[in-house]
């Protein structure tokens, strides 16, 4: 409205450092919240169980959940574009049993491992094509992927298959020790995935297009960004991560098992949301997803330390997820009202 009600000068003195910080980093707030929650959990756990923060325990925290880290990384790409991928748990199981089966038949790891990644990529490609070129809702498309992967897992084998391959076992058995801390190659792979994703999302045009699609697909297209190819690729990435997670889980458990990962996609989605990525897309950080997985793992560990049933993990994660979603919704309605 062109009423002149405001006679005060519009631009105040140079904005405070706080204001500048907020205007540059506002979207980091949810991730900070996740870090805060993690610290609170760790500290209260240490208070309750004096041995909690031991190097051994903390190292195990990452390595027990390495597969989930990788899944969350892949999911972050998809969710940033405003989509969702329900198939990741099943893809993990499928590629895991596929790899185990190939190895058991004597095929060398140098062939089996890439095969796992390619299998994951193919399922991701299928979902991406359905979403991008046939305008299928991501929910339904990834549902088809879930069905397909789960069924194929059982086609490969109805029972679990042990893995004897030296390379795969080396991934999990080897430990690099520094003081009391240790890390295995699986852990390194997981952290590497995070690092690569971080780099891509921040430093490449592809990564910024991912964010742009989440911010407004039409606007991104108008800006000349290649929306179609990017939307397709994020699902392929999620599929590859599913394959990678299959490798890590198979190494971890020493076997492929077609019943793996039932419901794991939910844990991964929860980790990503808790880590500060909005399910509506456009905002979020892959480092946040890493934090989210650590939160999940910490809760699981605390529950086991307490001797309580593992079922509590799911309930608490569900409650945390709800809390984050409600807060996100309140923030959104508040900012809409202001507009």
């Amino acid at each position: 409205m062109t009423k002149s009600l405001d006679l005060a000068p519009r631009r105040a003195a140079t904005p405070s450092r706080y204001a500048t910080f907020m205007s540059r980093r506002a979207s980091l707030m949810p991730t900070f919240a996740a870090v805060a929650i993690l610290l609170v959990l760790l500290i209260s756990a240490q208070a309750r169980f004096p041995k909690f923060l031991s190097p051994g325990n903390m190292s195990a925290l990452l390595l027990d959940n390495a597969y989930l880290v990788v899944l969350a990384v892949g999911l972050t790409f998809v969710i940033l574009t405003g989509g969702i991928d329900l198939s990741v748990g099943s893809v993990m199981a499928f590629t895991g049993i596929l790899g185990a089966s190939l190895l058991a038949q004597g095929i060398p790891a140098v062939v089996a491992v890439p095969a796992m990644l390619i299998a994951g990529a193919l399922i991701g490609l299928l979902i991406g094509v359905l979403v991008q070129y046939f305008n299928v809702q991501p929910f339904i498309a990834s549902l088809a992927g879930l069905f397909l992967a789960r069924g194929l897992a059982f086609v490969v084998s109805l029972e679990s298959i042990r893995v004897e391959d030296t390379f795969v076992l080396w991934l999990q058995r080897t430990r690099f020790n520094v003081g009391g801390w240790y890390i295995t190659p699986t852990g390194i792979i997981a952290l590497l995935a995070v690092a690569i994703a971080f780099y891509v999302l921040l430093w490449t045009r592809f990564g910024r297009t991912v964010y742009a699609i989440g911010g407004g697909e039409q606007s991104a297209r108008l800006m000349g960004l290649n929306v179609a190819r990017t939307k397709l690729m994020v699902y392929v990435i999620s599929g590859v991560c599913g394959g990678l997670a299959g490798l890590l889980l198979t190494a971890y458990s020493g076997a492929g098992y077609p019943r793996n990962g039932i419901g794991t996609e939910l844990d991964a989605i929860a980790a990503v949301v808790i880590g500060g990525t909005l399910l509506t897309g456009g905002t979020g950080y892959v480092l946040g997803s890493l934090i989210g997985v650590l939160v999940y793992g910490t809760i699981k560990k605390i529950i086991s330390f307490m001797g309580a049933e593992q079922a509590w993990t799911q309930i608490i994660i569900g409650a945390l997820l709800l809390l984050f979603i409600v807060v996100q919704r309140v923030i959104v309605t508040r900012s809409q009202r202001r507009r």
Partner: protein
Amino acid sequence: MEEPRPLLQLTGATVRFGAEAAIDDVDFRMFPGEVHSLMGENGAGKSSLIKAITGAIPLDEGELRLGGEVVRFRTPHDAQLAGVSTVYQEIDLLPNLTVAENICLGREPRRFGVLDWSSMRTRARAVLADLGLDIDPASILGTHSLAVQQLVAIARAISADVRVLVLDEPTSSLDVDEVAELFRVMRDLTQRGVAILFVSHFLEQVYEICDRITVLRGGRLVGEYVPSELLRIDLVQKMLGRSVAELGTRARPDSTPPETSPVIRGEGVTRTPGIHNAGVELAEGEVLGLAGLLGSGRTELARALSGIDRLDAGIITISGQPVDLTSPRKAISFGVVYSSENRRTEGIISELSVQENITLALQAERGILRRMRPQRRRELAMSWIEALDIRPADPDRRAGTLSGGNQQKVLLARLLALSPRIIVLDEPTRGIDVGAKVEIQNLVGELADNGLSVVFISAELEEVLRVANRVAVLRSGRIVQTLPSESLTVDSLLALVAQPDEFSEVASLSTAEPDGSGE
């Protein structure tokens, strides 16, 4: 500064949607370094013209020349590459990314295939400084006000060698200082030879900034004018025009309302940002017209009176009882019904049949348990189809396939089936052919004769005068005056709607005391 050759020239442009022409044989031109305004009421064809220039829709007939050469844009991106950029009302940027990215993405600086952030920030800072703007390139766009986001959108446009910049309603959400800032930037750009198409319904701003004005009405070109040679009142008259009044019009209604207390009354009705401190009252059997230009607050007032939007301040009384209209459902229970100006999105449910549309509100009012029997629904639908002459007279036809006029009748049938006491009609005759227009006007008259109270909004002043007993004139979100319609002519109403201060004779025309707080 004028060069003899126009920078952008549109000749004989026609765009059709189905059988109707959104613009018909329109000529339009812009010279480098000028600010050109495109004016017209809703449905005049402005947005179609803009879409044709910016590549969003193709021309069915006609030719577009840029810099003398014929161009054909297939996508908005083509237009952008050719130097025609648009800043829309809903900013087409990415609020979750930084200002620098919003300016540079799509042609961002890269080093070894990787984004060069510092170079991007420098470039953004340079562009912003060029426009005299002090905005932090590393800040996230969404944290800034709409005004700033708009300026960033303009910055993006000029960072890519723009020749023609289209600004679509850029000032709707800006305050005075922000508008001044925008105008400064615009003048800056014109110094460099950029042609700016300024689309706005704020007359004062158009007169302040524009070098030339093109007026559209009903999809056709009315003319191209220079502001200094065109009186405001003449501009408004060209925009609104005079409609054909010969088709069996009703006698002008008796404007002395009965001496009973008002059926509905609103005092201090406020809903920011649309309407401020408005006072209206309506007697039984009376038709109150709301007249004003786009953005004057007519729709906001109507929605506030019918419970569609909650009031920020003010009281509404129905038959003397103050009511709190918290929802449309509540309003309906008090006998107040509303017909939205967005017939397609807020009125008719296109996928449902005519019958289902007509019976919807009545069924909702009766509740879930008291379902209307199929025969009863059929009867009701058929009787309304007949009474309002809805064509085609097929109750099972999908409502979305009907013409605008018949859709409006279906909507009216739905509302009238509720036996309301007060009916608020927002632009009921917009986009409807003349014959149907008159039908609806006559219908309004009949309803009033039968004791219904009607609030009638229309951009066509002649229609308002023909239908209403009294007219409330709105400007900039306030009711300026409320006058009996017999004391007004189309010219005097035009003057009130446009700008009263210049015309002292109008002030003496007002015989009734103004309702509410006038200026």
